[in-house]
């Protein structure tokens, strides 16, 4: 151990680590506190803390006259040097990190279904925008199965399926799906309108022509400016005429058909529809769209 003498008091051979040098004057701790009671007394002074190179800064062991190796400015004995250089994370810190990693991995695996469902919902939206209702419905159904706790997904899947069925003239099936969605989708989803459309299809398929007429009139009440709505009523009356032979039904059919033609007589899809109604009125035969196209691929004329 190295020692020093205090320049203020008479103390001699004070351990070097217990001294402080101020402007090259060595003080013991007592004299330092006595002479410099305030921080302002140390202003503009050079202050050095002496470090004894023969005493280990880590374990405080005295190595006599032997000067120790230093790490940074600190003399460290061989044993402490090994400990310091090999210092690693305590067991509890390692355990903490392992626990975090395990929790993160488990949560990624556990919550993967949410991310998968999210991807499917996004893809479903793209298909819907492109008019591919089949894939849109299938993806939304898959998403709802992955996240059954979110009922909205199941409702949306029904909604998309309903639209798919509607485009495939499966009115009865569409009606079942839309009834599930009623009062459970936002107003801009036009669910009431879609239900009416589905009823039109369902009643026609079921040969319930009174129901067909009622649904068509309900649809017409929503918007009288649409040629399709007028034609649908004409179609319903034509079905009733074909079934019952009442002249009144025929007249109503012709009346609504004329209204439809006045609104739009150019659209090809509508022109086919008008042609089918004309055929129905003439022949009192009710043909579905596919049957009519098969029988009269180039249209019908008297």
């Amino acid at each position, binding site marked *: 151990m190295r020692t020093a003498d205090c320049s203020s008091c008479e103390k001699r051979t004070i351990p070097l680590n217990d001294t402080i040098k101020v402007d090259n004057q060595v003080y013991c701790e007592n004299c330092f506190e006595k002479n410099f009671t305030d921080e302002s007394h140390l202003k503009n002074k050079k202050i050095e803390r002496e470090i004894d190179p023969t005493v280990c800064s880590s374990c405080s062991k005295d190595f006599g006259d032997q000067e120790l190796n230093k790490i940074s400015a600190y003399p460290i004995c061989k044993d402490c040097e090994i400990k*310091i250089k090999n210092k690693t994370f305590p067991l509890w810190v390692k355990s903490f990190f392992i626990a975090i990693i395990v929790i993160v991995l488990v949560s990624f695996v556990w919550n993967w279904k949410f991310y998968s*469902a999210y991807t499917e919902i996004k893809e479903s939206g793209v298909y819907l925008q492109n008019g591919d209702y089949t894939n849109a419905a299938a993806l939304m159904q898959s998403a709802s199965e992955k996240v059954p706790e979110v009922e909205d997904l199941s409702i949306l899947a029904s909604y998309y399926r309903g639209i798919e069925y509607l485009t495939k003239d499966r009115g009865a099936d569409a009606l079942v799906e839309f009834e599930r969605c009623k009062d459970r989708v936002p107003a801009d989803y036009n669910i009431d309108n879609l239900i009416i459309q589905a009823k039109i299809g369902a009643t026609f398929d079921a040969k319930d022509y009174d129901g067909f007429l009622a649904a068509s009139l309900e649809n017409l009440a929503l918007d009288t400016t649409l040629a399709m709505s007028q034609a649908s009523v004409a179609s319903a009356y034509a079905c009733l005429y074909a079934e019952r032979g009442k002249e009144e039904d025929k007249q109503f059919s012709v009346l609504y058909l004329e209204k439809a033609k006045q609104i739009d007589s150019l659209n090809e899809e509508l022109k086919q529809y008008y042609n089918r109604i004309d055929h129905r009125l003439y022949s009192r035969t009710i043909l579905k769209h596919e049957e009519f196209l098969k029988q009269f691929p180039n249209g019908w004329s008297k």
Partner: protein
Amino acid sequence: MFIPGEIISVLTFPGVIVHEFAHMFFCKVRKIAVFDACYFRFGNPAGYVVHENTDNFTTTFLVSMGPFVVNTLLCLLICLPAYMPVKFFDLDHPLSYFLIWLGVSIGMHAIPSNQDADNVFQQAKQQVKNKNILAILSFPLVGLIYVFNVLRIVWADLIYGVAIGIGIPSLIFG
């Protein structure tokens, strides 16, 4: 609302542990001797790492700024799986809430302390004379750190944690 720093440290103790871990980690990577390390305690500071000095500015920079990288990354990784069920699907999920607390706690302690910034600043002042690019870039960073630590009084640390843990997933997934 003012809450003492010690209480915030207790409530977000994982962040303190990860912060000190990051310092220690980069000490190990850069082969710097560590004299003492405390990963968490009740007091101020809540944790510390005492390591040897180095003249290598890159080492000083990495050791001091380590928590920013490690804490931020971990915050994002931990909150990511929790984000979807809670924010997108609006589900009450205990595990997800726990993960969000864990992630945000860690994120809150991402910003280095003023002491860390000071270590970088003192050495950068010398290194900039050698036209060290990293030293030059570190000045605005150090300034930001000082500003951020002042703004902790208005919950800048919480805002940062939430921005990383919830904000970034929101930007990614909408």
